[in-house]
């Protein structure tokens, strides 16, 4: 089993190394096969690891590879922790990645830097696996930053487009701000002697950390999570990141990397357990983000932007689940979301592909007729995210909302409102894309076409997964499912639901009703219309003016400070220091002579002094 875990981790790295050493003129077919093959192998090995873990009595297996950062009292080895939580992450990360790799071989056909694209993609999967398989925070940080770097490269993939270059930079810098949080969390833990290994932290946190210290750690972790997982206040890099190729959006900015923050919070559950106020903050941030992002999604005109805000909103649900202690539900929604959101992104990629790059919802319509595979699979994704039974989203979101209800009725209500909005904006997107009049004919000369088989096959697999993933954790079989599996992880306690059977049925009924409400509202409003200014206010379109706020409040003042500092520096250099030399002479004409004169004298003095020493030495030796 440990070998299988190693293969899972290393296969993508080997894939990356092979790709970068491949000859420049290697065929796309070869490149695609190597990249996809490496990830498929990784997925198969993850399956073997999972089966191996199921058959063990001890559910935590540590695999130490080599000592890495060890000095003084710091011991951060390169070591893997294979336990229920990490295996769950490994499985869906590699599974979804393999499908998206396959899809990309079709989508990226004929692109410049085809090989580089797949090299980055493989390196990304490797980094993501380092992140989830690490047995300590420092090594997780390696993966954490690694995925950030790959994301930077892939968002700025079309680097000759300034918007893409800026988006890549923005993504990296926002993440970097979040990473401060993770660094500070490590520093606090270390200075309280908890160690930085997850198993160590789980056993020592309660004795070594005071309530205040734990709260600081939790808040710092939340900052880290809000950077990586695009939560308030650092969420607004994700929409820009849609500048990357669509498979990248599906893989990195929907299914895997952006959920890393949620993973980290679940992983650090033993510390979260020590800080009630910290958990409440997490829950509030999650619920607010879910709501705010959903409102914005209702007004976006770009198909990928809608999906981006939808992703932010769904991760908000996951963060809410963590905050209310429903760790199992958070991971459940993470897995289900990986399926249906990857499906929706890849579907939108297929749509964009068929319309030769068009992303504006107003220039689509009636695509159901021409995309016989994309349409039905997208339909599944739409129903799944809208929260209708029997699709995965219904069960997963239901689990989150049930957890929230048991904890705090206000947060639950906010979650329900968000659910209405979710069904609404997704239906709007669906209707504008696939129904109505074929508006694309106004701008597009060519006839749209369905995508090739390598792109359609992943859609079908993901659609099946999005349909049945609910079975991972059906409410009436809580004892033998994902929830039980995850909560057998050290330190991750099972959530105390505290909601009766009837109560759960009632909540489920409410979920269905609100989903239908949003769905029908959107249908009636958008069936025959492409623009409703009253429903798309500028406030929402401009993302609640978040970007403008940061620009005015931080970006511009900081730029001004930097420019001022530079000016001061120049003054110090030019006036004060050179002035010292310059003051020797009052006349500008004499300045040059005096300066060179000075140097000569110093140089002469120095050389004389040195020569004296040398002569003296030689004399002594001689």
């Amino acid at each position, binding site marked *: 089993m440990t070998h299988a875990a190693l293969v899972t981790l290393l296969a993508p790295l080997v894939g990356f190394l092979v790709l970068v050493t491949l000859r420049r003129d290697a065929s796309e077919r070869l490149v695609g096969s190597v990249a996809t093959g490496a990830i498929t192998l990784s997925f198969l090995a993850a399956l073997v690891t999972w089966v191996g873990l199921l058959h063990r009595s001890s559910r935590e297996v540590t695999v130490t590879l*080599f*000592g*890495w*950062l*060890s*000095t*003084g*009292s*710091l011991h951060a080895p390169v070591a893997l922790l294979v336990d229920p939580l990490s295996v769950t992450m490994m499985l869906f990360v590699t599974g979804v990645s393999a499908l998206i790799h396959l899809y990309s071989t079709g989508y990226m056909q004929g692109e410049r830097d085809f090989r580089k694209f797949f090299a980055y993609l493989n390196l990304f999967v490797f980094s993501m696996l380092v992140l989830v398989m690490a047995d300590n925070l*420092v090594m997780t*940080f*390696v993966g954490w*930053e*690694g995925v950030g*770097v790959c994301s*930077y490269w892939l968002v700025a993939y079309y*680097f*000759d*487009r*300034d918007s893409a*270059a*800026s988006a890549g*930079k923005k993504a*990296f*810098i926002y993440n*970097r*701000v979040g*990473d*401060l949080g993770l*660094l*500070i969390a490590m*520093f606090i833990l*270390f*200075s309280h002697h908890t160690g930085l290994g997850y198993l160590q932290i789980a056993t020592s946190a309660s004795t070594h950390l005071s309530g205040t210290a734990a709260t600081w750690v939790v808040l710092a972790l939340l900052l880290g999570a809000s950077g990586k997982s695009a939560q308030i206040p650092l969420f607004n890099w994700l929409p820009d990141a849609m500048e990357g190729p669509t498979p990248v959006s599906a893989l990195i900015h929907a299914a895997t990397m952006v959920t890393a923050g949620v993973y980290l919070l679940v992983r650090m559950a033993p510390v979260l357990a020590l800080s009630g106020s910290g958990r409440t903050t997490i829950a509030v941030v999650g619920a607010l983000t879910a709501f705010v992002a959903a409102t914005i999604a209702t007004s976006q005109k770009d198909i990928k932007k809608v999906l981006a805000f939808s992703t932010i909103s769904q991760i908000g649900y996951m963060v809410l689940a963590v905050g209310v202690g429903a760790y199992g539900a958070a991971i459940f929604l993470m897995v289900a979301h990986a399926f249906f959101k990857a499906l929706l992104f890849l579907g939108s990629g297929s749509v964009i592909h068929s319309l030769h790059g068009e992303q504006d919802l107003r220039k689509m319509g009636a695509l159901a007729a021409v995309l016989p595979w994309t349409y039905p699979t997208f339909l599944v994704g739409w129903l799944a995210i809208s929260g209708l039974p029997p699709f995965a989203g219904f069960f997963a979101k239901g689990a989150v909302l049930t957890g929230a209800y048991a904890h705090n009725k206000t947060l639950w209500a906010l979650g329900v409102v968000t659910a209405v909005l979710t069904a609404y904006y997704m239906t709007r997107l669906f209707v504008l894309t696939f129904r109505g009049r074929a508006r694309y004919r106004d701008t597009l000369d060519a006839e749209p076409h369905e995508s090739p088989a390598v792109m359609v096959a992943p859609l079908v697999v993901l659609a099946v997964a999005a349909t049945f993933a609910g079975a991972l954790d059906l409410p009436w079989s809580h004892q033998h499912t994902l929830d039980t599996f995850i909560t057998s992880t050290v330190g991750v306690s099972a959530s105390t639901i505290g909601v009766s059977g009837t109560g759960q049925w009632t909540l489920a009924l409410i979920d269905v009703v609100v989903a239908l409400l949003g769905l029908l509202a959107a249908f009636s409003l958008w069936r025959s219309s492409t623009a409703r200014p009253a429903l798309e206010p500028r406030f929402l379109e401009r993302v609640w003016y978040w970007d403008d706020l940061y620009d005015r409040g931080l970006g511009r003042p*900081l730029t001004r*400070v*930097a420019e001022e*500092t*530079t000016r001061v*520096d120049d003054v*110090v*250099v030019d006036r*004060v*220091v*050179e002035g*010292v*030399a310059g003051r020797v002479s009052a006349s500008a004409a004499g300045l040059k002579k005096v*300066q*060179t004169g*000075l*140097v000569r004298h*110093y*140089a002469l003095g*120095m*050389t004389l002094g*040195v020569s004296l*020493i040398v002569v*003296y*030495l030689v004399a*002594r030796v001689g």
Partner: protein
Amino acid sequence: MHSSWWLTALLLLPLAGVLGVSLTRSRPERARRVALVSVGVEFALSVVVALLYNAHVAQASTWDFGVRWVVSAPLGLAYDVALDGISLALVLLSTLVALVAMLSDRAPRREPAYLAWQLLALDFTVGAFVAHDLLLFFIFFELVLVPSYFMVAQWGGPSARRAAMKFFLYTFVGSAPALVAVIYLGFLHQHEVGGNLSFNYSALSSTVMTSSQAVWIFVGLALAFAIKAPLWPLHSWSPSTYGEAPVAAGAQLAATLSKLGTYGLLRFALALTPLAVKSVTPVVLVLSVIAIVYGSLVAATSRDLRRLAVFSSVAQMGFITLGIFSGSQIGVTGAVVLMVVHGITTLGLFVLIGALERRRGSARLDDVRGLQGAVPVLSGFVTVVAFATIGVPGLGGFVGEFLILLGAFGVHPAYAAVATLGTVGAAVYWLWAYQRAFHGPLSENATGMADASPTERALLWPVVALVVALGVVPAPLLSRVAPSVQQIVAHVTPTGVSR
């Protein structure tokens, strides 16, 4: 070979190279070959020394290859050299930098004199790093100034003389109080134990003094070192000097000579005056934090890669001094790691500056766009240097920065927290600069530019490999540096060394 000869060989070899160069000076090509061979052998020798390190002494000692030979007893002048883990790391760095810098300098008209100065600069740098005697260190430290001045003044850009003058003035002014401090410390020691003057490192480190004496000695020494590093606000010689220096000299100056300053702070200013530590630490920490923020801010506005290198270095020096004065073994170890990594990345950066200047006549960032499209391989190298400076884990810079901040946080959480902001700063100025020139639509003046030549690749790949190796397997460096650091930290702060 007897263990005592290794360091002497390291010090004689470049001098032999100088002799060889001067004998062949009428035939520049041959002179260049002689110089390259001597630097190459010097590098190989330093690698052998690194492998042999600590094979000759008892396990408890961190000093090896020691030789002591009194030149003049009444003056306290002695040839007294030895190597510990910290010196070892910096000697290796110096020889590597000299080798790569010399190889990278392909200017057709490189007079033998230039090569001789390069060899002398290497020799004096190594001498300073292996000196086990304060006076000897100071002599080497001062001697370095001579080759540096001439390399910049005679082979630099259009305003090189002016820049070299400023550099000279600055450094010279800083040295005067240092010399006074050295002599003062020597007399204090003589007064205490009697006999002849001695500047032996181990002897001086146990000198009894009052805290105010300690502070004065510290200030005297630290001023010279802070200028050399340079530590904010004494950096103002560096933009013009590095802006005008020829590439190889710039690499040598920025990558290794600057380490003489930080090394001096750690080895002498800090370790010889334990009583001053308490009162000077807050001052140095404040300056370090300012350096990090200030360096990052100015670097963000730079329109030229050389200027970016200068202010990025100011920020990095801030991290290093934060580590040195963190009062934590982990922090000081991190500082030494970052000295090495900064040296290597700066070397890479100057090789890249040279590559750009050969192609475009300047390393400006604001008059060209889309370079990544024209020179993808060179751009890739720039990216690695950038990410190493940003502190992306997996690369060496992270190990240094992380250890510094982790160590400092345990003792001085507020300073460390502000300094952690600097990790964002580096991302801002580097990605900004990169986007400015390397992203975007390809501009006309970059069309058809040649990508990295085989020579350039051969020079830059080792730099990348080293940066990755230090990030992934730092253990060989850490295990040599940490025991030496522990000795200093234990000496300076007898309690609370475990961190």
